[in-house]
């Protein structure tokens, strides 16, 4: 990092170019954590939403309480809890696993609320028709309810993709060298923070724009389905 170490002034393009490859590698970690965390959050959220609708009352009440609890506590606390608290309970997991787990559980609770709204928006008549045709609960959800519940909530679910992405810097507290952590390391090595931190911001901006473009694409795809 010679160029950075020797650079003067507020901004140095030479330093910017120099830090980019290192930041790029950290960006891959950020994207990995985001992608896997988000996919798990989508699955976990759907499971929670279905459990919450369970006809077994204690189960649905307990699920509701868990969702409420997790949504009402900070993600940072949950990351610490899983990574540092886990070993005391005999659960030793790597920082990476703990980080992805925390993100997906936290965001799973948010997506479950979105799924819930989507499920509740499906008219009761659809359930009755499915029942009158003697479809099983599994078939009813799979073929009748979810295909109607999910398309309208794609934009809301998509927001949480961007949310989870922007929360990945929190994982730097458990020594996952994602983008933000890497930028801080570069800064402390060279005493130039401006370039790496700015580049991190630019990266998040660009990726968020790409993500929202992608969500719009999915949305349009789904809207097209029942031809009018």
């Amino acid at each position: 990092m010679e160029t950075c170490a020797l650079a003067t002034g507020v901004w140095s393009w030479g330093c910017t170019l120099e830090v980019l490859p290192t930041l790029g590698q950290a960006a891959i970690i950020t994207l990995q954590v985001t992608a896997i965390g988000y996919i798990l959050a989508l699955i976990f959220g759907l499971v929670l939403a279905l459990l919450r609708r369970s006809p077994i009352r204690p189960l649905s009440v307990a699920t509701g309480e868990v969702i409420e609890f997790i949504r009402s506590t900070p993600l940072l606390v949950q990351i610490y809890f899983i990574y540092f608290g886990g070993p005391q309970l005999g659960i030793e997991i790597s920082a990476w696993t703990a980080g992805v787990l925390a993100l997906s559980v936290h965001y799973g609770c948010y997506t479950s609320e979105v799924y819930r709204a989507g499920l509740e928006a499906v008219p009761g008549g659809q359930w009755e028709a499915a029942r009158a045709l003697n479809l099983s609960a599994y078939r009813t959800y799979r073929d009748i309810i979810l295909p109607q519940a999910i398309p309208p909530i794609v934009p809301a679910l998509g927001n949480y993709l961007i949310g989870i992405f922007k929360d990945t810097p929190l994982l730097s507290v458990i020594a996952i060298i994602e983008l933000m952590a890497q930028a801080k390391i570069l800064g402390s090595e060279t005493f130039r923070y401006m370039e790496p931190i700015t580049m991190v911001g630019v990266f998040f901006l660009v990726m968020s724009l790409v993500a929202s473009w992608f969500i719009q694409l999915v949305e349009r795809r789904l809207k097209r389905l029942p031809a009018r």
Partner: protein
Amino acid sequence: MDPMVSFQKVTKRYGPLTVLDQLDLDVAANEKVSIIGPSGSGKTTVLRMLMTLERIDEGVIYVDGEPLTHTQKNGELVPADERHLRKVRGGIGMVFQHFNLFPHMTALRNCMEAPVHVLGLSKKDAGERAAELLDMVGLGDKKEHYPIQLSGGQQQRVAIARALAMRPKVMLFDEVTSALDPELVGEVLNVIRALGTEHSLTMLMVTHQMGFAKEFSDRVCFFFAGKIAEQGPPDQIFGNPRNERTQQFLSAVLEAT
């Protein structure tokens, strides 16, 4: 001969409100029964209980000699669980006031879903059966249309085909023309009329179409406050109602039309 459908002292309450009060009603195989009455008289509830969309509070319903709402356990009747309901529900089909077609499926797929996944038919067989039924209801050229592309009357005819695809023994029609524009009522009634004459089906219909009830049904039941206030052949009910409530109801309905 055993009745096809038998309500025995069936009671249904919503909180303090008693919707059906110790109802006894037998329907013979192949009989067409129309259920009329003011709103809130429990007539729709009769169909919904028979379709097991509502839990029963007291009494037992039998379909084709089998307890619908209960199972035999050690010689006693106990309220049925979901598994039993799934087993016995198959003999009954229902058509709803608001069609309740699956909006994300074509007319054909609407009629194939349950035959494939409940009866276990192959896609090919289910497709042929569905196509045949759509032809029968006069929608052979609309098989690949989505519900939103169809008029209300067409949607309701798809819904009838969808219910028939399960080959039920009993068909329930819950105010199936009430949500339709007046000019579309006829096409749906024609389909039901054809069904009644060409197939051996037991039919129960809740209806406000008095003309149709009179012409089509073998028996008319007038519901009032959760009970059958009067029942009999349509000529008698419409021509010479004995119960005061029936007279009031019919004159109010006839005045409105």
